[in-house]
């Protein structure tokens, strides 16, 4: 499942509610979770807030494509990707990637692969506001 959110969210609450609403899958022996959170610094500067632009239509399509491709490549029970858009402040979660599988190896591999693919191909762009109120676009991802 894919979701873009304009409002802040608590990934742990989100996962707990999902677990309750869907019931615990008896066959899913492993869940791998990645949560990406906004830092208050980037490239040596203090950042006070960020705006996350996306491409309506394509961003959802690309995330669906990544999820479908992971379900095909690994033996997974389920895939969840939640991503923020709009205004974000430090300490707020930006992205949640979760995968459920029978065993840990596939869960770890799929979760990492999904996150790296998202960073390289999902159409999102970060515009930072520094503490002196200057604004700049983030030019590229950090290596890892």
């Amino acid at each position: 499942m894919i979701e873009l959110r304009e409002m802040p969210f608590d990934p742990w609450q989100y996962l707990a509610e999902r677990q309750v609403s869907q019931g615990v899958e008896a066959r899913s022996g492993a869940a791998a979770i990645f949560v990406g959170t906004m830092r208050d610094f980037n490239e040596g500067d203090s950042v006070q807030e960020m705006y996350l632009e996306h491409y309506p239509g394509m961003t959802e399509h690309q995330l669906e494509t990544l999820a479908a491709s992971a379900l095909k490549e690994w033996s997974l029970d389920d895939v969840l990707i939640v991503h923020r858009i709009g205004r974000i402040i430090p300490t707020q979660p930006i992205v949640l990637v979760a995968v459920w599988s029978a065993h840990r190896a596939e869960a770890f591999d799929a979760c990492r692969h999904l996150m790296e693919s998202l960073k390289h191909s999902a159409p999102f762009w970060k515009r930072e506001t520094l503490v002196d109120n200057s604004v700049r676009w983030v030019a590229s991802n950090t290596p890892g």
Partner: protein
Amino acid sequence: MLVKVLFFASLRERLGVGQVMLDTHEAISVQEVWQRSSGENVLPVNVLIAVNHTYSDAAALVQPGDEVAFFPPVTGG
């Protein structure tokens, strides 16, 4: 028939426009879409291209009614 052209993020700000409608009655290359919509001859090497929400390249052919997007490297997650 029209081709809808979109620019995002820092590229939109540099060009000063977010959307351009191009009129064409035949298929044209992405390269030609870029020239006609941006007013620039050279498509920068780091600019990414999507046709109808799927990644594509400068040589791809665009049909009337298609949506083409140009944008800088992505920085989500």
